[in-house]
């Protein structure tokens, strides 16, 4: 009896120490959920989720205040990732981004620009250069393609243009297996009558 009690007390102490050690050793700093979500969000800062940026949305998600399917640029992929992190139920995307939409950047038609600075204010990443009454221009490298500047332009001089393909950003396509299978089918179809003859 005494031994059993001693053993269990001893075990309790050992496991308690282990747990205590683990909690110190493997301590997770900060609010990892919000940060982890923020990391997978596309950081376009487009505000289509109804929050003023990616981080606020991530924080709201971490608190469980919103749905997982609000990130339009991220699409279903990001939605699934979010639901994996938060443990919330995956939901169908309400607004669906065009599939395989090429990345676009804003371009200002500099002939039309009146220098109203409205787009500069709208840009979530300060990717538009310019000053009042002076022509504005988009820093292509920093543009996230959020399209927030498009509607605010009073003279409609901003449009979204896909990044032109050049040898520098050209990608090797994936070998097309469907074609391979099709040709196989064709081959087998061709071969069948032969087989029949044989």
């Amino acid at each position, binding site marked *: 009896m005494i031994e059993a009690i001693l053993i269990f007390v001893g075990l309790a102490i050992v496991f308690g120490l282990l747990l205590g050690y683990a909690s110190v050793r493997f301590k997770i700093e900060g609010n990892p959920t919000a940060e982890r979500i923020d990391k997978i969000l596309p950081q376009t800062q487009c505000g289509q989720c109804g929050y003023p940026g990616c981080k606020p949305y991530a924080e709201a998600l971490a608190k469980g205040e919103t749905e997982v399917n609000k990130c339009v640029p991220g699409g279903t992929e990001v939605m699934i990732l979010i639901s994996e992190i938060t443990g919330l139920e995956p939901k169908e995307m309400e607004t669906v981004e065009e599939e395989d939409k090429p990345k676009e950047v804003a371009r200002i038609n500099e002939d039309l620009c009146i220098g109203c600075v409205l787009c500069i204010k709208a840009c979530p990443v300060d990717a538009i250069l310019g000053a009042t009454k002076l022509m504005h221009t988009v820093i292509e490298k920093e543009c996230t393609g959020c399209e927030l500047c498009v509607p605010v332009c009073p003279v409609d001089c901003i449009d979204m243009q896909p990044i032109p393909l050049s040898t520098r950003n050209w990608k*090797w*396509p994936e070998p097309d297996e469907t*074609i391979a299978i099709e040709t*196989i*089918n064709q*081959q*087998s179809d061709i*071969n069948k009558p032969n*087989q029949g003859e044989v």
Partner: protein
Amino acid sequence: MNAPELSSSPYTHNNQNVRKVMLQVQIAALPALFTHIYLFGFGIVVQWILAVMTLLIVEYVMLRMRGRPVLPFITDMSGLITITGLVFCIPPDSPWWIIVSGSTFALIFGKHLYGGLGYNPFNPAMLGYAFLLISFPVQMTQWTLPSSLSGHSISFLESAYYIFTGHIPGMNLDALTGATPLNSVRTGLSQGITVVDSIRTEASSHLFGLSSWGWVNVAFMVGGVWMIITRSISWQFPVGFLGALGLMSFIFNQIDPNLYPPMSFTLLSGGTMLAAFFIITDPVTASTTPKGRFIYACGIGILVYVIRNWGAFPDGIAFAILLMNIAVPLIDQYTQPRVFGHKR
């Protein structure tokens, strides 16, 4: 000129293909097949024909059901290797439904249900064999005795008749079948007969100093060596497997020769050589890294010895292989070769 379909280099090939590789394996099995026929009669030929017919039917149905092109996959010869392995494992004169059900199980559950060639984690032949071993233990352990032992050489037709009907008119069946050397050693041990004595009794049937099973094993080895030269299989598999098995038997034989059979007996009995060159070398289910292959083969060797000597089955190859199949991803993960320019 239309823009050509974009394809990447290289635009040349060594003209090797899957079919050729499989065919080489099949050819390498021929010496063993002939030896088998010579020593055990034509039973295996009947079994093999039965298995091929099963193979064709099963493959056709399965490929159709899976919506895959039938011809290229039915002719990839991988199924042939599977059933060849299985045919060598079952008693040559076992009933016809043994091989049919075994092949069917092996092909459907061992290969197609996992996505066909290249996607199966378990060796299909061994899966089929294990299925038979568990389902029909009596039939699976009743081996046709070598003609030299039974003193009767049965013809092809007799074999076929026996396989389909279960009896040959005017012949005592018990005289034809018996236990394999591995089995007799095991049963001998349980009856208090030492291994040495058991083997001595077996030795009476020896042909040029080797038992019939020993000769089949040698034939397998010949084919295997040819496969290594033609690079159909990697040398790591047989070397690792035979090395580990041989070393185990050597050590334990030194400890107690009465309890543990000698190395030569271990290496040349049962399906040792079949496994070493034809079964464990199946690349789909084996480890792929050079070190991994060696470890994988060693693991099987050790497990085979363990099961043979301390397990419930006379020959543990099927289970040893299946067990090591499970470990393959782990082995592959930890045996990645050092990439050029990288430090370990």
